[in-house]
């Protein structure tokens, strides 16, 4: 099976290229990037073939592509791939507005190709453990969730992450969709209301998007969930950030830290303290699911529709933050 990568704008592409190469029977055919310098840089770094254009990559007739462009540029690349009859795994958030997201869903449906949204937390083993615990019924009634997906402000990785036009927003757009998706998935219920407050106190001199965000979601079944989507981890924190879920249930409280499986590492020469992650690789399992869905000619575990729903929740958060009032869904 032949898979290509369209754009290296998102840093996750650096992980996915290695994930693809680790899957037996998958040929990573190469990469294309509209920024030739960036394309050349990563082609060299990963010893990959560089196609001069996205069209040239698609002309190679891959079975599927991973799209890792800036959020606002997902749509044109997804439409190109769909037109070429190529299955798509798109980085999250699926788009920066609902019309773009809808156009992507339509293009892939009409072309009969898979559109999968890159929500790796669905494949996180701690999160899967949490899901089975919830499904076992052993917790009794579940009332709510206290969740966090905090991170470092990502400007050091990619400048466009803090560009409202390209990213669609700041911390809320970057971090809300993972937990919004997990919660929809485990509750099998849709969000009916979003309340959110945002601020720009952290890194106020550096960026003009929001860096702090607190949300409260209400689901159709009455469950509530708060999400802290702030870029509040300091730049010298031992790791990029993390994702935690606390479940409030009849039986008591369950806490899940999806990135707790680390070693504390201190290096005297570099005067550094870092965390070395030793847990399972959710990205690997996610990319493997994309390949399996293509191979088995079935819908993937996480779809473009899931990406649309998560984006809708993030967009509702911006509306709520602007008005100070809860916003009803669907938008």
């Amino acid at each position: 099976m032949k898979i290509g990568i369209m754009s290296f704008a998102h840093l996750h592409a650096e992980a996915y290229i290695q994930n693809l190469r680790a899957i037996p029977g998958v040929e990573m055919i190469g990469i294309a990037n509209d920024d030739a310098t960036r394309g050349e840089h990563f082609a060299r770094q990963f010893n990959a073939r560089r196609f001069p254009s996205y069209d040239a990559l698609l002309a190679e007739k891959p079975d599927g592509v991973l799209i890792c462009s800036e959020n606002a540029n997902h749509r044109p690349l997804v439409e190109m791939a769909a037109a070429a009859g190529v299955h798509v795994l798109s980085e999250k958030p699926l788009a920066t507005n609902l019309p773009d997201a809808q156009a992507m869903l339509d293009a892939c449906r009409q072309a009969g190709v898979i559109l999968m949204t890159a929500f790796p937390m669905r494949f996180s083993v701690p999160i899967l453990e949490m899901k089975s615990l919830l499904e076992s019924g052993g917790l009794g009634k579940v009332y709510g969730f206290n969740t966090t997906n905090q991170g470092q402000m990502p400007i050091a990785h990619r400048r466009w992450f803090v560009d409202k036009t390209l990213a669609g927003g700041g911390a809320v757009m970057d971090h809300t969709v993972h937990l919004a998706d997990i919660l929809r998935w485990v509750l099998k219920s849709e969000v009916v209301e979003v309340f959110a407050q945002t601020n720009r106190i952290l890194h106020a001199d550096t960026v003009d998007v929001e860096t702090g965000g607190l949300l409260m979601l209400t689901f159709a079944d009455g469950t509530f969930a708060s999400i802290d989507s702030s870029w509040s981890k300091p730049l010298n924190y031992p790791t990029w950030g993390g994702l935690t879920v606390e479940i409030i249930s009849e039986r008591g409280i369950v806490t899940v830290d999806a990135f707790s499986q680390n070693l504390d590492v201190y290096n005297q020469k570099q005067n550094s303290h870092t965390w070395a992650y030793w847990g399972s690789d959710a990205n690997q399992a996610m990319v493997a699911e994309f390949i399996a869905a293509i191979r088995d000619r079935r819908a993937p575990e996480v779809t473009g529709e899931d990406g649309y729903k998560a984006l809708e929740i993030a967009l509702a958060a911006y509306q709520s933050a602007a008005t100070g009032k809860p916003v009803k869904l669907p938008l």
Partner: protein
Amino acid sequence: MATMKIGIVGTGSMGQTHAAGWAETPATIAGFVGKTAAHVQSLAAQYGARAFPTFEAMLTEVDVVDICTPTHLHHPQVLQAAAAGKHIVCEKPLARTVAQAQEMIAACRTAGVKLLVAHVVRFFPEYVRAKEIVTAGDIGQPAVIRLSRGTFRPQKATDNWFTDPEKSGGVMLDLMIHDFDYARWVAGDVARVFAKNAAVEHGLVILTHRSGALSHVEGSWAFPPPHFHTRFEIAGSDGWLAFDSEKNAAVSLALHHRQTDAADVPAPGIVLDESPYTTQLKAFYRALTEDAPVPVSAADGLAALQISLAAIESAYSGKPVEISPLPEVTA
């Protein structure tokens, strides 16, 4: 100056704790009054003090009244003590309603007596240290604050007023007021409150401070006994600090279970050379003898109460509640 005489009303766990605190000051415990005669007798014997038959009888014999009774009794007892010209320590929450608290503050002002609202968290050294670091500017301007306090539902052998929301206000008034007060101490006055509360009494609250800072406050009675934790995290424009009572515990126990007496209201084990409850009462003693300012003003107690009541209202109505500045607080 004659020795200051203290009278304690309420002989549950908080009355006992305050007695131990006063015993560390130059003041004399004149006596106790309470609902449970056995507790009153044993405390009187322990401190060589009197067992007063009534609150009125105690008022004529003391300089300071320390009110450690259930929340709904604070209002009449403070009014009575103020009318008798006694200085007052009042356990948190100051009152059950804003109007009651305003009347109590006015009565103390008219009578020329000092009122300490016992927000003891302001004397716990981990919270004090964090406040000092914020005040010193070491982590810049507070942006996103997370506060959590969780334990089991308060147990009492008989007449459990904690579980009567009319008397205690439930977890959002009785427990979360600690962190509402702390959030306000660190990040200033609160403008907006949005809250959810589970049927098991586990609240999640988003506070929007007038400064633009956001606080996520969690308070729970939904843990199994003997759990008790406190946690906080303050992300500021120049840094970040965090505390977790479980991770930072100096002494931890892992003991096999055995049948023991039912616990009263849980209190964390305190591994310090001085109990923060004692520190608090010593500070009030100084305020009385040296005419220094009261360490936690009645206005602070009122402002924290107002946030708690707004949270209860928001959880009930499903709508955000805007906080209108009270003259007592803004003065």
